[in-house]
């Protein structure tokens, strides 16, 4: 994107910068001069921010909150991007199959998405985690399963309308195989809307995984992730509100930044919406 076009989206640039800082901090966590996020120091528990060695204070076990936030970013960001990516890949494949091939494949894909969409979003994720057992990986799988119908519906709609168009018919008449038609003629038609949906979905997925961790169904202690930090700090909210406010703020700022970038991408790539 040229500098002039970037200037049209100052909020998105700010959002991208915030995301870049979060990603770099998360990626470089082991190299940063931070204390061990899991090292317990009970005499120094629940220290307020700006106290001695701990710029953001300590939690109920005396663990450094800044360090836990940075290490927690690795889990929370990876979980958000990972689940959105998994949902996108599964959703796109099923959307292409359901849109391009009529008959039993289409019926199967559509009934599957109908049933999954018949559940309230987070409830189904919780139910799947209930079956698989609590843990970050299971929470991610559950959220991806709940999330893929969004992509399936989107891609199927585009494929259904594109496959009727003359250039696709022409390609078929020229003897192109299904794989060539899909890759060369159909895929470019849904790349933009899928990217836009993905960029807006990452924030939602970070919220969803943090929500499951908050309920005790995602990341398990002592691993730091923003949702579980919030859950364990909740009991100390009266004495030390920072223990709860800081991880919540981290989730909010990162998701807000991701949504700003997603909004601008939608404006730039998908002007119809």
């Amino acid at each position: 994107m040229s500098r002039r076009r970037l200037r049209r989206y100052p909020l998105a640039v700010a959002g991208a910068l915030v995301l870049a800082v979060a990603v770099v901090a998360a990626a470089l966590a082991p190299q940063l001069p931070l204390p061990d996020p899991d090292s317990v120091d009970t005499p120094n528990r629940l220290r307020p921010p700006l106290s001695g060695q701990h710029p953001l204070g300590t939690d109920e076990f005396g663990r450094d909150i800044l360090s836990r936030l940075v290490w927690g970013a690795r889990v929370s960001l990876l979980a958000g991007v990972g689940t959105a990516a998994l949902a996108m890949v599964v959703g796109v494949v099923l959307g292409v199959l359901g849109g391009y091939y009529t008959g039993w494949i289409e019926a199967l894909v559509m009934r599957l998405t109908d049933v999954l969409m018949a559940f309230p979003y987070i409830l189904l994720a919780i139910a799947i985690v209930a079956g698989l057992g609590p843990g970050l990986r299971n929470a991610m799988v559950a959220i991806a399963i709940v999330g893929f119908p969004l992509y399936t519906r989107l891609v199927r709609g585009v494929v259904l309308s594109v496959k009727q168009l003359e250039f696709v018919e022409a390609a078929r008449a020229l003897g192109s195989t299904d794989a060539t038609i899909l890759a060369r003629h159909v895929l470019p038609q849904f790349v933009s809307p899928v990217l836009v949906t993905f960029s807006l979905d990452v924030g939602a997925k970070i919220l969803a995984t943090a929500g499951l961790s908050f309920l005790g169904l995602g990341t398990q202690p002592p691993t730091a992730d923003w949702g579980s930090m919030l859950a364990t700090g909740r009991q100390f909210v009266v004495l030390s509100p920072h223990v709860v406010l800081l991880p919540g703020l981290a989730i909010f700022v990162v998701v807000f930044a991701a949504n700003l970038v997603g909004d601008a991408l939608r404006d730039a790539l998908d002007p119809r919406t």
Partner: protein
Amino acid sequence: MKRYLARRLLLAVPVLLGVSIVVFMVLHLAPGDPAEIMLGSAATKEDLARLRADLGLEEPLPVQYARWIGHVARGDLGRSLWMRRPVLPDVLDRFRATLLLTGSALAISTAGGVALGVLSAARPHSWLDRLSGVAALFGASMPVFWLGIVLMVIFSLHLGWLPASGMWAPHGGGGAGDLLAHLTLPALTLAAASVTIIARLTRSTMLEVLGQDYIRTARAKGLIERRVVTRHGLRNALIPIVTVVGVQAGYLLGGAVLTETVFAWPGVGTLMVQGILARDFPLVQGCVLVIALSFVVINLAVDLLYAWIDPRIRYE
């Protein structure tokens, strides 16, 4: 309308069947023996054998499903392993509290969202319109459980205006005022994100409708602006608004799990999380089934509302 209703009810049957299969399969998702997962590694062989026999786990899956759905159809959702009593009465009792919370949040978000959206559309680019735009981004980015804790810290712990948790005061409560005081914070927390979503959709739909020729005609014949906006504008914008309200009802039913946990609201959500942590599958299945069924009913109601708002839909 009767034919439309019958067709719509018929369409709900495969969805209900699919929902029941998903809920049934919850028990069988994890690799290994469900009885061992439920009772833990300390269970004796006799206990495991008894539970397997109780749940019919030795039989093939389709047989197990047929038996389970037969029981469910008769209102028997099984016995809770943790509470050692039938699941259904507890789930229904808790469901009333969830319905109250979700219904209140839906009422707040629909009234607030539609009003905000209509006002924003009536004066685009005004300060109110800009504010609701920023609020929408905030709403989409705010973790609901965090918002609940922040509201609780401010209004309960610091200002002392509202109770921090539960549904009734431990002593001397029980009246409508007590319930309302306990309901306010959870309902506002749950409604926060939906208000902004409904407001943005109402705004964009209203802007589209207000640009139509018949609105110009209404203005040209000298109708006052308020009548143009509400009678001619809002009425024609209702279908997308009803759609988003229906979607939000589902979102609120699911989101209630988090809000209930924050405020210790005695709803199905808190019961379900307790059930999961206690590995009480019949209880979890009962909770999921009741919420999912109510969502199917909401979707059905939304479809019937469409047909009532726009009679053309009945004849398509």
